[in-house]
């Protein structure tokens, strides 16, 4: 199993979209070749959802959940990182199950009337 060190790719802060893309660009060809991977977060201390959305969430466009569960393992994720990543994965699954039109539906958000201030 190959190991990818996130710290070696992006350093201590895993927060930006650009750094997420760097990780995705390394992971994607390995998974295309059906190579099992360990994604190692040792020495990474700060995580933010833009990084995970692009680095990991995007994989759900390309691969099934079953394939990702079979091929990808995570190591040394902090409790906060796990919580953030798990929610990013749930959001990505929802995102890719919707059409572009459905993503723009607003009615579900706007049930309550707004208060007004003058």
């Amino acid at each position, binding site marked *: 199993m190959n190991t990818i060190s996130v710290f070696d790719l992006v350093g201590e*802060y895993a*927060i*930006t*979209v650009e750094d997420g893309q760097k990780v995705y660009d390394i992971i994607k060809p390995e998974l295309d070749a059906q190579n099992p991977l360990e994604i190692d977060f040792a020495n990474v*201390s*700060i*995580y*933010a*959802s*833009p990084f995970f*959305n*692009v680095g990991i*969430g*995007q*994989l*759900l*466009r390309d691969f099934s*959940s079953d394939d*990702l*569960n079979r091929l*990808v*393992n*995570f*190591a*040394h*994720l902090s*409790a*906060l990182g*796990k*919580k*953030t*990543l*798990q*929610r*990013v*994965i749930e*959001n*990505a*699954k*929802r*995102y*890719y199950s919707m059409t*572009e039109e459905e993503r*723009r539906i*607003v009615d*579900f*958000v*706007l049930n*309550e009337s*707004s*208060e*007004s*201030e*003058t």
Partner: protein
Amino acid sequence: MNVDRRLSDEIVDKVYEIYDNAFHHANSPVGVISCGQYYKSKNEIRLTVIDFGVGIPSKVGQFLNRHDLSAADTLRWAFKRGTTTKPSASKPGGLGLDFLKEFIQLNHGFLEIYSGGGFARIDANGEHYFNRTLGFGGTMVNITLICDDKNYRIFDGHVDDSSDEIAF
């Protein structure tokens, strides 16, 4: 200033989204202005981020092609989990403000946003969205966080710290 390391990491993590939005969404002609202060007697951090860009109501109205929406409703949409106006349509997003909102509420701090004709205040008592007659030509975000780890919990749900198992 003495802040628990986990709390400071979480503050950076959650507040980053505000800067990400200001730099990547706002199209501000003069960049982003930010200032902050630690108030020792109250043990609070207050942070302000201002841009003079298009504002959330305009951005969201354009993205949704719903120019009939009130400014308050566009802010409510922007704070809903999973909503984003980011152009990278093939990549998921839109969790940052939701995470920030949740963190502010657990922390017992508060967040205020003035953007275009809208105003939002989020605190432990809930979310309040208003239309204002006097608009702001951009977006101003004020965040107040309590620097006491007794006053906050990282998790609203159970996370198993002993395993790196993540389910896709």
